[in-house]
């Protein structure tokens, strides 16, 4: 099973790049052939990542590859530091640089004294795993390198760790999370690793009251911050009505605060409304309902839990990325050995509710009810920033597909 028909799972390097590009005040410098950078611009634009004065390439010529000449990289570092004065320059190896063993870290080390910007090397060249591994490495290195010592306490601020611009509806989810945190506790979001955040927020992140770890790949970074600053952490993401309440309760417990009663009542009402689905399911005479969820591990678990809370059995939970960066993964979530295995499985599903990415949905038979739930998006584009998958609005959105599914079932 070696042929990739659609889009391969993005590499660790790609995950690192879209994470770093989401940090305002920094520059990403790729050490490698320019074509990769140019090619990537379209994808990053689709993800909503700003590239203007944030992404550069050195290009690389045969001499650089054969002789290991890094002078091109040295000059580019000096030039960016002088011209743009970023707080940090992330020097990211290309696959070619990684294969020839270019010592990016060494270059950053000796060049550090010549520039004002903080130089941080990412030597993963796309060969250390998929993007989930890259996200973990990015969160870890940022948490290790950038937060300032002795930060001012920020009792009403929480950090988001494990955010990814490569996730479907990422910016909508962020908007929903901010709204929930504000309404529930009057909290604001400080640093966000990594999405629409700034160097200042990351430098101050050690003073936050809590780190919210939205996906497992953020755990090593959160543990580092806990060890260094004593910041407690809450793991998980709010999917579904019950899941949202549970998530908020964990935050309440960690901070010793109460959930705002108005919001609590709103969630209770939604939970009450949702209980009717069990009744509808019991009245089915012919069909046996089943759900398949394909997407990112944490989202698959979250949405799967939501469906089960509604009385809908989840037949398949499939993660689109490897679980190498997930400690003790839930055994109900599987990773298909190949694209073909996943596509063959999906081709065989009938009269199910299927949540998945566009390529996966493209092979599902027409007698299913489907909902786009993961990247990549190949039909249309993400535009809205108010259509989350997380939180109450996310649950409302998914519930609309449940309604459609119930209408189809007999």
């Amino acid at each position: 099973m070696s042929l990739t028909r659609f889009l391969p799972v993005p590499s660790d390097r790609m995950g690192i790049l879209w994470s770093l590009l989401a940090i305002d005040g920094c520059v990403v410098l790729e050490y490698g052939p320019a074509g990769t950078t140019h090619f990537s611009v379209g994808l990053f634009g689709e993800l909503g990542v700003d590239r203007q004065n944030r992404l550069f390439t050195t290009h690389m010529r045969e001499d650089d590859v054969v002789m290991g000449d890094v002078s091109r990289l040295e000059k580019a570092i000096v030039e960016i530091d002088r011209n743009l004065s970023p707080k940090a320059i992330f020097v990211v190896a290309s696959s070619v640089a990684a294969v020839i063993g270019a010592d990016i870290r060494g270059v950053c080390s000796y060049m550090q004294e010549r520039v004002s910007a903080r130089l941080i090397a990412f030597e993963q060249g796309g060969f250390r795993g998929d993007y989930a591994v890259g996200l973990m490495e990015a969160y870890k290195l940022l948490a290790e390198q950038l937060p300032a010592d002795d930060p001012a306490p920020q009792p009403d601020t929480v950090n988001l760790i494990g955010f990814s611009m490569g996730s479907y509806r990422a910016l909508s989810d962020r908007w929903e999370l901010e709204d929930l945190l504000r309404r529930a506790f009057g909290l604001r979001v400080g640093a966000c690793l990594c999405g629409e955040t700034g160097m200042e927020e990351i430098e101050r992140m050690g003073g936050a009251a809590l780190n919210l770890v939205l996906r497992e790949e953020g755990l090593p970074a959160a543990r580092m911050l806990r060890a260094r600053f004593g910041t407690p952490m809450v793991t998980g993401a709010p999917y579904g009505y019950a899941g949202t309440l549970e998530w908020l309760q964990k935050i309440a417990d960690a901070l010793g605060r109460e959930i705002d009663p108005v919001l609590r009542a709103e969630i209770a009402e939604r939970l009450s409304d949702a209980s009717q689905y069990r009744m509808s399911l019991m009245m089915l005479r012919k069909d046996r309902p089943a759900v398949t969820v394909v997407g990112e591990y944490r989202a698959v678990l979250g949405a799967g839990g939501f469906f089960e809370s509604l009385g809908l059995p989840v037949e398949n939970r499939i993660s689109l990325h490897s679980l190498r960066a997930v400690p003790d993964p839930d055994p109900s979530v599987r990773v298909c050995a190949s694209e073909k295995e996943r596509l063959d499985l999906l081709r065989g599903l009938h009269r199910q509710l299927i949540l998945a990415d566009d390529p996966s949905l493209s092979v599902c038979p027409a007698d299913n009810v489907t909902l786009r739930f993961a990247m990549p998006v190949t039909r249309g584009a993400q535009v809205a920033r108010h259509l989350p998958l997380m939180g109450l609005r996310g649950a409302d959105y998914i519930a609309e597909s449940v309604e459609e599914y119930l209408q189809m079932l007999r």
Partner: protein
Amino acid sequence: MIDGHEILSQLGKLRDVTGSKDIRPLSWALFPGTHCPLMGAAMAVRGIRDAVLLVVGTDECAYYTKHMTIHSDDFGGLHGRCVSAVLDTRDVTFGCKAKLDAAVEELVAEYRPEAVFIVTTCVVEVIGDDVDAFAEGYTARYGLPFLAVHTEHFKCENHLPGLERTITACFGLMEAGPRGGTVNLLGQRMGDFSATELYRVLTGAGVKVGMQLPCGCTVADIRGAAAARANIVVNPIALPLAEKMKERFGTPYVLFDKYTSPVRIRKAYAELFAALGLPLPEELDALYREAAEAAEAAKPALQGVRYIYGNTPFDCLEFNQFMVSLGMVPQLIQTVSVEPERDRAYLADILAGSDPYVTKTANIAPLQPVYDILRPDLYLGHEFAARLRKKGIAMVRSDRASSMLGFEVTVFITEELARAAAEARDYRKEVQV
């Protein structure tokens, strides 16, 4: 802030260039950088309707290439004929043959292609796998042509070698046969040849157009291409293939580039019809006059108009020579290649009244402060129009010329230059306000 004076101080002038190696980049940190030859190869295979593109490389190379093709009807979209064999650490360490063998087996079974272009990427070339030998083996095993195309970007400047190598690889498909009456079109990268003036003129003269590579053909068309009476090369990327066909099959060729100068276009038509052994169609006189008049008409509006040349569908120096002939003043030319001996005819005219800076292409970030110093009226190429407008610069949009060949090019581009020059005057007023 980027210091524009410093950037310019490090650039060479066109007069001083002794070869392409003298062309310096605007900066060491580039954005967005040039396209890579992998993209060029994909552009070429796009037009060969029953061939499959098999990318061999990293997840990233495979991802971006597929991503580019998803919205292409020519490629067949998501389920289309761009697939990949993605390499992991094991493949890089031990070689990619095992992975490629398995991928090819699946590909042949599922896609039933007429030909497969195995396109290598940088990493495959660094590890040194002999993909040419693999391709020969697959050809023998499956009884259909597998063509290896090498697209390492660290050995070339941009995507054009990818196009060139892909269409040159098609030579391996061609079979000798009796000479027919058609002409082949070689090297049209984009656009529809049947929409061009050249096509209308040829068909009006009773000439049948045969294979159109790479803008629209089948593998069978390529197999039979050697039967053509002549090859029309509309871009230098097709010259290596044309040379090979001339040597092996005796097929003559005529270079009919996307020229802008009406005199040069008239000469190309004359050479083409001479090669075909046909009289020059009478309509060409009228078309020539129309183009020459369009150029004359644009001159008053273009006198002294200063410009920065980025990229266009035209030959860089030929077009610059033409613009200079209209009274325009080049301030900075972005190109990857200037060879004084080869380009002597163009350079003499350009340098007669100006001596522009010259730099490499596809690096628009450091251009921003340069605009403030050079204060051009026009920018030719892809930039952010709104950003240019704030600096009083109008953008010349020439992409429409991708579907043009012949005197229509002159008419179109002179009108576009005049339009943009008028727009620049309005923008200057906005900036002053």
